[in-house]
């Protein structure tokens, strides 16, 4: 059994039915495929759980956190829902767009950063919330953006 299948089998044992393990399995596959889900990721998940790759892909496409297209090495997500919006989220998003030279939904040319505008992240008391690889930064203002990007670029292994 492959290492992946072994890990999925362990996860599946926690549930009444192995199918419940599909979400953790997809997450694991995504982690092992540079943050997105190429066709062979679905082969792997399907094999490990006895499901068809097409079924796995249909499930994955329902959820925003599974990426069916390649993404950058870091994921920057700006909440633009109403609570952050009332306190300037649009300006924060535009600052990221300007500074990175991409629009929301795009990846920088060097493949370093994917920028996304996302729905409420559940941190509305500290607007604007910006999640970098799921770690929240609170109270982000447009003028903080240059610093954040500098920090992310600095953390790059080969920068």
């Amino acid at each position, binding site marked *: 059994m492959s290492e992946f299948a072994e890990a999925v089998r362990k996860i599946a044992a*926690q*549930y*009444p*039915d192995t*199918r*419940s*393990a*599909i*979400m*953790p399995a*997809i*997450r694991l596959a995504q982690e092992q495929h540079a943050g997105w889900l190429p066709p062979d990721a679905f082969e792997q998940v399907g094999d490990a759980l006895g499901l068809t790759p097409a079924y796995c892909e*249909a*499930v994955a496409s*329902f*959820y*925003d*956190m*599974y990426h069916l297209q390649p993404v950058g090495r870091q994921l920057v997500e700006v909440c*633009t*829902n*109403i*609570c952050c*919006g*009332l*306190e300037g989220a649009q300006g924060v998003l535009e600052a990221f767009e300007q500074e990175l030279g991409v629009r929301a939904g795009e990846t920088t040319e060097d493949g370093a950063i994917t920028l996304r505008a996302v*729905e*409420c*992240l*559940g*941190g*509305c*008391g*500290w*607007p604007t919330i910006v*999640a970098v690889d*799921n*770690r*929240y930064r609170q109270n982000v203002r447009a003028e903080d953006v240059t610093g954040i990007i500098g920090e992310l670029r600095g953390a790059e292994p080969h920068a």
Partner: protein
Amino acid sequence: MPELQPIVLASADDHDLTKLEQFRAVGGYAQLERARQLEPQAIIDELNASSLRGRGGAFFAMGRKASFIPKDSDKPVYLCVNADESEPGTFKDRELMQKNPHLLIEGMIIAAWAAGINRSFIYIRGEYQHQADILEAALAEARGEGYIGERILGSEHTLDMVVHRGAGAYICGEETALLDSLEGKRGNPRLKPPFPALQGLYKGPTLINNVETLCNAPAIIENGADWFAAMGEGNSTGTKVVSVSGNVQRPGNYEIELGIPAREIIYGLAGGPPEGHKIKCWFPGGSSAPVLLEEHLDLPYTFEAMAEAGSMLGSGAIIVVDDSQPLVPLALRLAEFYRHESCGKCVPCREGTNWTVKSLERIDNGDATPMDLEIMAQVQQNIIGNCLCVLGDSMAMPVGSMIEHFRDEFEQHIEQARAARDREEIAVRAGAELASVAEAGPA
């Protein structure tokens, strides 16, 4: 106002309650011993007498729901904690799990005991990675101390707990969509009945409760139902963690006694809108709640009073909009959210959310006439009550309420945007004429 004794956020600011030792030092897990001495029915009776109602949005009586779980089920019975928290404006469960994970675990054990449950899942939204890590660590500690696992504290009772992470889908907070998602499917809501208490996860009876609801259970066992029911007003008993956001000076979570005036929360605790501004409108219960006005600020913050005023207490998230904010972009952003999150199963929801976004875009671009407001109001009417779940209503109600209360502003926006567009067109046309004159060259 007398000093409130917080329940679910008690001691959370001066102790690191994520550590089991510290949680125990403030009385944590002590209620398990007491609950063990009680018959399951006695726990349910106590929950019933407390009138504790669900904190996830629908305010259903928790004790009643637990009493619906059949005692003689031939299928396994499950507890699912709803920690999907994705309603815009709501961030209370995040703080509860982050600061007080063991309280949730203790509440789950008590609920499981009451309803005869051996397996439980915490469905936490995927974005809450930090909180999921905290929960995992707390579960490991609790397991080590024998609070969960086989034969809890030497009793006959076994309880298994698994943290299940979502992956970004608001609809999975709807309880039946949550179950489908947990079963490894796309998160589509199911037709009810059957209700989950009878037929839930893998068709087994399933108790589904919000994080905050379960966090109240230990204090009710400790202090008794009467103590709990003495707090609050009418049928809205106990405390509530209110998430206050938007245009206020001190946004954040506040645990309040239900029934205090909304003004006390928005101005007293959250500091009101910035200096020099007034409140234009406020959402009393998350982005799905119809907006209320300044004149509603003195209402008691209860389930009943918010409903009577034409809105709802919902998830207990107050979003404040001050008088500097134009409403059309706000309504548009709201509609975009619901369009994005609609699972697409019902036509009125799928098409209605899309229609509403398009109409609001037309208004903003200067392509609309006042007739469009009429049509949009009708679209909202056609959504309400005509779908499998209330996601469609959750857009229709707030958007409808904004048009109703602020019709003048919407009409003005239509006119001004049209005028701006006309000016632009004239400028473009004039530019083109100039260009063609230039091209033709001097005669």
